[in-house]
C-alpha cells in the first residue's frame, strides 16, 4: 500500500486542489472569527460551513481523482500487488490529504487567536473530528461513485446530486415532515431519520458538544433528552457505519472492476 500511497500523495500535492480547499477554509474561519462574538459562536458558524463544504469538496475531488488514477491502473495492477492495496492507497491518500487540509484551514485560526475556554477547545476538537469523519464518509462515497462509473462527467453529476441531497434536500424533507405532521408525536422517527444522514449525524455530534442542542431544533433537543450524556456516542455510530459500508462497497466494486 505504501508505494501507492506515496504516488497518491504526490499526485494530490501537485493538483493544488487540496491546498485551495485548505486556504478557502482558512479564509472562511478567519472571517467568522472576525465577525463572531466568541469562540463558541465561531465553532457553530464553522459547523455550517463544514457540513456543506466538506461533503461537496470531498465528493468532487475524490471522484475526479478516481478517474485520474484509473488511467494508470493498468500499469499498477499488472504488477504483483493486490488490488486491495492499490485501493487502500487511494482511499487513505485521499482522505489523509483532505483531512489535513481541513484541520489546517479550520484549526489554524484557533491556534493563533487562542483557544479561549476549555469548552471552546473541546468544541473545536469535536468539530475537527466531525470534519475528518465526514471526509472519511464522503471519501468512501467518492471512490464508490468513481469506481462504479465509466465516465467522469456523469459520475461528477451523481456526486453533486448526492451532496445536494444529503446537505440540503434531506433536511428540507425532514423539516417539511415535522411541520406538516406537527400534531403527531414524531420525535423518535425524526431522530432516527436524522441519524441516517451522515451530515446530520456530524452536525448533531458537534452541536451536542456546544451544549446548544435546544437551538439545533427538533432533533438535537430530542436527542439530548433521550440519550443525555451518551448522545454523542449515539451520533458516532451511524457515522462509523457510513464510513464502513461505502468503503466496503467501493472496495468490492474495485475488486470486480475490469481495467
Amino acid at each position: 500500500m505504501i508505494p501507492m500511497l506515496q504516488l497518491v500523495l504526490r499526485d494530490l500535492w501537485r493538483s493544488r486542489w487540496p491546498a485551495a480547499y485548505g486556504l478557502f477554509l482558512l479564509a472562511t474561519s478567519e472571517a467568522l472569527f472576525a465577525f463572531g462574538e466568541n469562540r463558541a459562536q465561531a465553532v457553530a458558524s464553522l459547523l455550517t460551513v463544514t457540513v456543506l463544504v466538506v461533503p461537496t469538496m470531498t465528493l468532487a475531488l475524490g471522484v475526479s481523482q478516481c478517474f485520474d488514477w484509473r488511467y494508470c491502473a493498468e500499469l499498477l495492477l499488472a504488477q504483483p500487488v493486490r488490488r486491495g492495496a492499490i485501493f487502500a492507497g487511494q482511499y487513505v491518500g485521499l482522505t489523509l490529504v483532505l483531512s489535513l487540509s481541513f484541520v489546517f484551514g479550520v484549526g489554524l485560526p484557533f491556534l493563533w487567536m487562542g483557544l479561549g475556554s476549555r469548552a471552546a477547545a473541546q468544541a473545536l476538537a469535536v468539530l475537527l473530528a466531525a470534519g475528518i469523519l465526514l471526509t472519511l464518509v464522503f471519501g468512501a462515497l467518492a471512490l464508490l461513485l468513481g469506481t462504479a462509473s465509466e465516465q467522469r462527467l456523469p459520475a461528477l453529476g451523481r456526486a453533486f446530486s448526492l451532496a445536494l441531497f444529503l446537505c440540503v434536500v434531506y433536511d428540507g424533507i425532514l423539516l417539511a415532515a415535522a411541520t406538516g405532521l406537527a400534531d403527531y408525536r414524531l420525535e423518535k422517527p425524526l431522530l432516527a431519520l436524522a441519524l441516517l444522514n451522515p451530515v446530520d449525524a456530524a452536525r448533531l455530534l458537534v452541536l451536542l458538544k456546544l451544549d446548544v442542542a435546544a437551538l439545533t431544533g427538533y432533533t438535537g433537543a430530542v436527542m439530548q433528552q433521550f440519550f443525555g450524556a451518551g448522545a454523542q456516542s449515539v451520533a458516532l455510530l451511524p457515522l462509523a457505519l457510513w464510513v464502513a459500508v461505502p468503503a466496503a462497497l467501493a472496495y468490492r466494486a474495485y475488486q470486480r472492476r475490469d481495467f
Partner: protein
Amino acid sequence: MVEVVGLSKRFGRRQVLRELTLCFPPGRLTVLVGPNGAGKTTLLKCLVDLVRPQQGSVLLDGLAVGSDPRLRRRIGYVSQLPRFPEQLSAAQVIELLAALRASAPVRRDEVLDTLGLESEIHRPLSQLSGGTRKKVSAALALIFDPEILVMDEPTAGLDPRSALRLKDWLRAERGHGKTVILASHLVSELEELSDRIVFLMDGAVWFDGAAAELRARSGEQNLERALARLVEERIAAALAEPSTTAPIAAAKTAPWPRSAGMAGR
C-alpha cells in the same frame, strides 16, 4: 506454461470472448491477430488479471493467475495505450514498480540502452512523445526480466530502428525459453517473429497454427491476403447461417485444427 481454459467475457450485452481454450508453451512466440474488436486486447488483459472473465480461467503452471497476485511477478505487460502517472519521470516509475514488485530491475541499463531511452529517463512522462512513451512501456515490462511477456501492439508508434531492436530482443527472449504473447496488426511482425499465429474473430479462435500453414490452407502466399481470406470465410459462414451463435459455437469447439483446411467451415 500459460493456459487459457474455457475463457468467456462479456461487456454488457456484447460477448467479447467465447469459451476460449489456448495454451502458450515456453520458448514460443505467439502473435494474436484479428480485426478490431476481435477480443485480442481483452484476452491479453485476462492473462494479467486486469479483466476478470465471467467463465473460465487463466492458469500459470496450473495456478489461476487471479488467485495470487505474486504470480504476476513472472509476467511483463505492455498495454495498447501507454498510460503512466504523468507527473513522474520514467526513472521514478521504475522506482515505483520496483517498490511494488519488491525486486530490483535486473536488466535496467541493458533495456534502456537497447531502446535508446537513456536521455529520456529523467524527463516527466507527460513531455514524452507517443513513440517514446511506448518505448518506456516496453522497457518497464522488460527490465524486471519476467519469464512471460504479454504485449499489446508493442511496436505500434515506434520508429523503425527501435521497432527492429525490440523485435530482436523478443526473438532473443524466445530463444532463452521465455513465453512471448503479443497482439499485432502488422503483417511484418507475423512474418518476422511468430512461431504461431492465433487468429481471433468474434471472440473465438478461427486459426491456430504457423504462418506456413496459414499460407498453405488459404492458397495465398501473401500473409495479409491469407488473413483477409480468413475474415471473408468467417463472414460467409455467418451469412450462410444467420443465427450467429451457431457458427461461433462451432468455431470455439473446433477452432481450425492444424490438420483441417480453411474450408472447414
